[in-house]
């Protein structure tokens, strides 16, 4: 297992037991490696090092980028076994199988930059104008719809119904 895997995320016995139970179902299954790798990627998002990037030296300045990380994932696994109907000779066939699947997403966004210079340490924010413009459009649209609905509720209702 990767050295970076944050053991403190799974430090209680209950968590480890339940995770082991989930993974035991897939023992011998190629899906096991995929699940383990995915779990490691997921839990690595909780590390402090995931938020603060590697410091970069630039002349007299030391720059540390910071980012917000949002990571989500889910997975499931199952097994099943059964026996077939009894043959004429009295024997029964049996079979089983197991399977699993999952998915996830990691999103990150720069938040600020820490700059250490001979004058001192300061934090410069990273402003995402696209996100702000989209928020302004959303808020403006909401306000316009509300005002239209209050001024002329029948017309607003008709436009909502598309007639």
């Amino acid at each position: 297992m990767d050295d970076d895997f944050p053991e403190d995320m799974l430090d209680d016995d209950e968590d480890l037991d339940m995770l082991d139970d989930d993974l035991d179902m897939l023992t011998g299954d190629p899906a096991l490696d995929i699940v383990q790798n995915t779990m490691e990627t997921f839990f690595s998002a909780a590390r402090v090092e995931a938020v603060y990037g590697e410091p970069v030296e630039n002349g007299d300045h030391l720059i540390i980028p910071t980012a917000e990380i949002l990571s989500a994932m889910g997975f499931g696994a199952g097994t099943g076994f059964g026996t077939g109907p009894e043959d004429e000779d009295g024997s029964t066939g049996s079979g089983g199988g197991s399977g699993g699947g999952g998915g996830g997403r990691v999103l990150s966004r720069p938040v600020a930059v820490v700059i250490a210079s001979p004058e001192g340490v300061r934090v410069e924010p990273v402003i995402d104008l696209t996100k702000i413009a989209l928020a302004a459009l959303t808020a403006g649209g909401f306000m316009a719809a509300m005002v239209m609905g209050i001024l002329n509720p029948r017309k607003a209702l008709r436009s909502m119904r598309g007639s």
Partner: protein
Amino acid sequence: MSNWLTIETRGGEPIATRGITITPFTRTLTVRFPGRKGGLIWNRPQSILVTGASGEEEIIPIRDITRYVQWTLYAAAALSAALFWLFRPKSMRDRT
């Protein structure tokens, strides 16, 4: 705190440069889905602790300006709409 939801502040490895030490801190929200079949982690920078050569300490918060502006816009829109609805003229009240 319940087991499925944890909010914690974590400190990172101190970074030493030119006589000062910078210690980063993060705020982590962890949600575990029922049955431990996955979860959600929201990790964001919270502040840095700057320790000078003579031992003086200063905490500098890291503010997410983009998020502040986003939520301010949403709140302003909701508040404006609520105020407009509350103080609308009587003629409009009769119609609604």
